[in-house]
């Protein structure tokens, strides 16, 4: 397998143009931290690494925007923005290697998804290289802009199947100088759901509300970072007490949230990602508990269930059981041992009317069919 690491966008364009004219399938990789995700696909002939396309091209602190090359490690970009008291509100589990391009391509997110949105909500503009070598830009670098189609959103979560993300313009946010978290605990999944709901409907404006479940105990975490963070956390604690959870206020809360993010990954178990409604969270907690699993996720209904390590067939059966219990909600398998992945459809989605449209898009953007073939939903 050949590996190519273009150092400029022009180089990437030339590489893809020549590969597509020979119909050579490629796999795009950044840091490779999520390269095992996606559907089972044959080994590609060529890997195109984005890690040499790295660096913060512009950081317009006064405008709260930045332009960044796709191969930039997320952690490096955050350091640069942090120096100006700012942050990119994309906070998947920590990794030194994970790149901005990879996080955006897989629409990966963390606790800040609650308040600031998904990667698609923070990408202002995108430069992508299509399989025929065309370098296409859409959007811009201002926070408000409706000129042209929003291709940035299309590339967020497309897993590199429409082309290679080369450069993105991003919206940044002020980084709160101090953060405080109120935590409520209960063994009753419905109390956890109710607590999360109360906080979400109150006027407290937390920067994150998360839920967690493990070993028969659930938690709700509400994080505040404003000018009156401490007072807000105390008000949240009152709300949590009122719905009969045991309450704590944590001042040095970084470790707490780091663990929460880590709950979205597993080296030995099976991680399933779900999009549900806030009023369905208790049901997810109950199902996970029945499978001796754990849960980390957002009060807005994005949850990651980790099923414990098991023999491949048992693990597959556990995924299928979860899927049937929570149907029609879609359970996407992310981390899982290779033997498990080989035995199930990781996407697990109904191939509804959208599928035709998705195939037509793929055909338009990647007529040669060389960009990350086979890893996406429906075998795209």
């Amino acid at each position: 397998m050949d590996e190519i690491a273009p150092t400029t966008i022009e180089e990437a364009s030339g590489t893809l143009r020549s590969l597509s004219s020979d119909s050579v399938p490629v796999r795009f990789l950044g840091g490779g931290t999520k390269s095992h995700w996606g559907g089972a696909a044959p080994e590609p002939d060529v890997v195109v690494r984005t890690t040499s396309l790295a660096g913060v091209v512009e950081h317009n602190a006064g405008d709260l925007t930045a332009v960044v090359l796709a191969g930039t490690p997320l952690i490096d970009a955050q350091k640069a923005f942090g120096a100006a008291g700012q942050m990119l509100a994309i906070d998947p589990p920590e990794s030194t290697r994970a790149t901005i391009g990879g996080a955006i391509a897989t629409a990966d997110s963390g606790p800040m998804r609650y308040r600031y949105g998904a990667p698609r909500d923070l990408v202002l503009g995108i430069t992508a290289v299509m399989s025929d070598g065309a370098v296409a830009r859409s959007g811009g670098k201002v926070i408000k802009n409706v000129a042209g189609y929003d291709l940035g959103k299309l590339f967020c979560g497309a897993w590199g199947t429409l082309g290679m993300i080369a450069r993105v313009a991003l919206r940044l946010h002020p980084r709160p100088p101090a953060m405080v978290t109120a935590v409520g605990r209960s063994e009753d999944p419905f109390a956890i759901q109710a607590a999360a709901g109360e906080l979400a409907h109150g006027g407290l404006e937390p920067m994150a509300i998360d839920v967690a479940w493990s070993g028969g105990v659930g938690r709700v975490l509400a994080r505040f970072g404003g000018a009156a963070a401490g007072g807000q956390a105390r008000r949240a604690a009152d709300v949590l007490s009122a719905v009969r959870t045991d309450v704590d206020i944590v001042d040095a809360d970084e470790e707490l949230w780091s663990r929460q993010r880590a709950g979205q990954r597993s080296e030995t178990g099976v991680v399933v990602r779900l999009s549900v409604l806030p009023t369905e969270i208790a049901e997810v907690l109950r199902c996970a508990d029945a499978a001796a699993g754990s849960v980390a996720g957002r009060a807005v209904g994005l949850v990651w269930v980790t099923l414990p390590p098991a023999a491949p067939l048992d693990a597959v059966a556990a995924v299928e059981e979860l899927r049937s219990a929570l149907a029609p909600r879609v359970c996407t398998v992310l981390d899982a041992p290779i033997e498990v992945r080989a035995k199930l459809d990781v996407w697990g989605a109904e191939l509804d009317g959208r599928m035709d449209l998705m195939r037509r898009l793929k055909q338009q953007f990647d007529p040669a069919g060389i960009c990350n073939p086979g890893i996406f939903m429906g075998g795209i």
Partner: protein
Amino acid sequence: MKDRFLEELRRICGRANVLTNPHQLETYASDGLLHYRVRPPAAVLPGTADEVRRIVRACFLESVPWVARGSGTGLSGGALPIEDGLLIVLSRLRHILEIDLPNQRIVVEPGVTNLEISAAVGPTHFYPPDPSSQVVCSIGGNVAENSGGAHCFKYGFTTNYVTGLEIVLADGEVVTLGGKELDLPGYDLLGAFVGSEGTLGIATRITLRVAPVPESWRTLVAYFDSADRAGQTVSDIVAAGIVPGAMEMMDRLAIRACEEATHAGYPLDTAVALIVELDGPAPECDERFDQVVALCRRNEATGVRVAADEAERQLIWKARKAAFASMGRVSKSYYVQDSVIPRTRLPDVLRRIDELSESYGLSVANVFHAGDGNLHPLVCYDPTVPGEAEKAERLAGEILEASVDAGGSITGEHGVGFDKKRYMPLMFGDDDLGAFQRLRCAFDPQQLVNPGKVMPTPRLCGEVPGPYREHPIERAGLAERF
């Protein structure tokens, strides 16, 4: 338009809902941008989503192009009819289908107005994107245009609130994108559809996220003797990590017009007025509001008026919201521009607008969403003076160039539509436009849906996207591209 086709439309939605009388059709010849007028050969007013599907299918079978229209308040000619196409008017689809407050969702038909949505989920919740036309504009139009409003800097745009759509594609197929849940796997077709200016299909069922109403508001208007000082204040507020619910600026001419219309008490001798509104938890608002007042004073505000109560807050806003409507008091006619610049370039771009105003001999009033750098210069002109309307349009075009030069955009919320498609090449090259075309062709290979909008030059699907080639007619000097 063939009789057979019109008969089919009448069978689908009833005789009374198919308009072919030229007098009736005059009403639909323009959207909110009145200087373009095209009377369509027919307009149809379906009453249900299924009727929409059957109409679109009939158009597909007869290869009839069509344009969808909501309330017709758009300001870029996006709903401008076409001479040989059908106009599909969605204002009869105005049912609120479901309100699900525990999950902060509402499901509506496209003809429901923006304000009706906030009313339906109130008083505990609201729908944040609030274009000035919110009393009449339809949510279907908001989805098409990715509408904004005064509160975007904190709350975001339509695209951040649409979680699900049922759409009718060009061939009459109905597809559901997203749902009530967030971040579903698969291509983000929702993200591609919202803001596509009615060129990819018709949304017949719209699921939206709504937000809890803020606990409190604090509002002030500060006056400055220069745009630089006001601009610096905005930058300082943002640099302090404060995210106001709204920050709005008006210059002297705009203030004069608004003041004559509303008597809100803005001083007429001030160069710039800056409205800052904080919303959120009360302790947070109080703490931050004191900081905002201090920053206004540090930048030598000539006066700071703090709204003492809700009535005064409404009065301050009344003047701002009247800006477009009250321009008639200072000018016979005006052209509203909509561009975006990086906020930090505000003083430079305002100086450039002043220069342009002087060299064209036309006054320009400035109203803008200062938080997100969205400018709305109002170019004043007298339509009875021959050539002045064209001059105003040229001046407005130069403002776009200045905005793009500063790193901005040709439109922040009004859309490209028909009016601005010729400016698209200021921002996008051939490969970029080629990628847009790929998206359009995936949705509508026959290009029956709102043709002639957004893209600067028509291109067929299947045509190889590539560098622009001169047409033989251009080469012969018989026509030119603009």
